[in-house]
């Protein structure tokens, strides 16, 4: 262990405070009895209790969950198969670089550009079928589109890590294609698939821009609800809601870290 200069240490601690102070402020306000204004009046749990009476919020929470889960399941399946397809077959140099580009575009493209282009496409598709009306279907498609690449990248790096020895050993023992996939590769890939799925779900929960562009009247999600309310004026209820969302994020992040640490050990 190396000693750090006191100035470095001081700056580092200040930076961490700088990251957390706003969130702590919100958490404090969520327990404050004062309805508006920022002065401390007394401690209360009321704002949390009232969250569960608010149909708008319950509805938004439900939508967030549906959007996150459905898009994650679709993206995990497609992304995993895609990673296998990229990693496990003898593609030429050109095909490989094409596939790499396809995976990297969703990672580097600004989300607002992707959102705009989807608005245009769905606007045209809407003429064909009303399924594509602004709302949940559009949002799920949008989320899956950016999730696939992340899942595929995570699973692919897992596949590279596994290497080809086990596969060759299984073949030598006369494993069929299907048996090899199901009994050998899938268990080995599992940590990568789970990690990819968790990443995809967190990305969905984290997204604001794509949902904001594609949402319809009945598909409000929690980030959209918070954004709309904050623009009208902040209420303690919003603080309570935000604090809960942050807590869920903390649980997800710590859980994911715990899982990946266990995997290493």
């Amino acid at each position, binding site marked *: 262990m190396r000693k750090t200069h006191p100035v*470095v240490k001081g700056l580092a601690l200040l930076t961490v405070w700088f990251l957390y102070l706003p969130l702590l402020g919100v958490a404090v306000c969520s327990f404050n009895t004062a309805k508006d204004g920022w002065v401390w009046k007394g401690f209360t749990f009321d704002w949390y209790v009232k969250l569960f009476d608010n149909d708008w919020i319950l509805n938004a929470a439900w939508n967030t969950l549906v959007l996150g889960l459905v898009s994650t399941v679709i993206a995990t399946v497609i992304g995993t198969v895609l990673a296998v397809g990229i990693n496990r*077959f003898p593609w030429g140099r050109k095909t490989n670089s094409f596939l790499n580009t396809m995976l990297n*575009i969703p990672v580097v*493209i600004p989300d*607002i*550009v992707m959102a705009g*282009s989807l608005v*245009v496409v769905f606007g045209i598709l809407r003429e064909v079928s009303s399924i594509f009306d602004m709302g949940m279907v559009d949002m799920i498609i949008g989320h899956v589109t950016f999730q696939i690449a992340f899942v595929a990248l995570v699973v692919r790096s897992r596949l590279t890590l596994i290497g080809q020895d086990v596969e060759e050993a299984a*073949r030598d023992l006369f494993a069929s294609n299907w048996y090899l996939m199901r009994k050998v590769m899938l268990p080995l890939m599992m940590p990568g698939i789970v990690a990819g799925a968790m990443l995809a779900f967190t990305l969905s929960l984290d997204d604001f821009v794509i949902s904001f562009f594609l949402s319809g009247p009945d598909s409000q999600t929690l980030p959209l609800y918070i954004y709309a309310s904050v623009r009208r004026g902040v209420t303690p209820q919003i603080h309570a809601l935000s604090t809960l969302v942050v807590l869920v*994020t903390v649980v997800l992040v710590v859980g994911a870290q715990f899982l990946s640490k266990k995997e290493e050990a």
Partner: protein
Amino acid sequence: MEKKRILWRGELTTQRSLSIRGLFCLSSGISWLMFFLMLPGLLFVAVSFATRGDHGELVWQFSLESYERLMGFSLFGWTPDYLLILWRSVEVAFITTLIAVLLSYPLSFFIASRPAKSRYMWLTLVIVPFWTNMVIRTYAWFYLLSPDLPLAKLACALGFIPEGTPLYPNVFAVYLGMVTVFLPFVVLPLYSSVERLDWSLVEAAQDLYSSRMRVFMQAILPQTAPGLAVGIILTFVPAMATFVVPDLLGGAKYMLVGNLIQQQFGASRDWPFGAAVSLGLMILTMISLQIYSRKGKEIEIV
């Protein structure tokens, strides 16, 4: 054609059979990305050359009007308004990245110097904000900038704002929000470089009486350059396109390119112009990625 048998990963098979299975695996993912990513992208380029109808509908008639508007040409002569917005976005992204980098070095060195056990805790402290919703992290500043709290009082005493008003919306608040949102994007990759730092080089430099500045420039910076480069690109590109932070903390006067695009797809409903601005943003993104990949190669050689 003769079927030639080849050995691939322990399996005796034909090129044809492998290709069929491979294409089958690729098909779902690639067609999804083709249909919802590449195709919309191409369509977007086409839309930027179309015209807007009277009620915001698309009219497929070729015109360069959207680009002319973006360049500032209109019926009433030339104004640099939109170009200024583009420039301001680059400027904000640049300054945000710079501040984030300056704050990230002490923090990454501090985390790397913690004992193994508490290091994970400190790292988690940086990862949590990384994954926390941007809307929440941005509006959270409202409280700290409210009129009754020290920050606003200080600004008031210095005469920057009238008494009883919050310290937002303004440029200062935008930078506060931007740096908090993007700081973890620099810290995390930088930390992974700092963790692997070869301290013997730093000690050698110190033994040879280098100044602190030189130790940093010649022993620390080259070693941490890969992580730093990733951090910079992860911050600069999304910071240029951000729209939540300037929208909530910057107000209507402080518009960035993200807000301009959002307006075209929201209230103004001018898709061709929105597409043209988006392509402008894409070009800026491409340029920064290009600089990155060139610098990235240089780093590898060093």
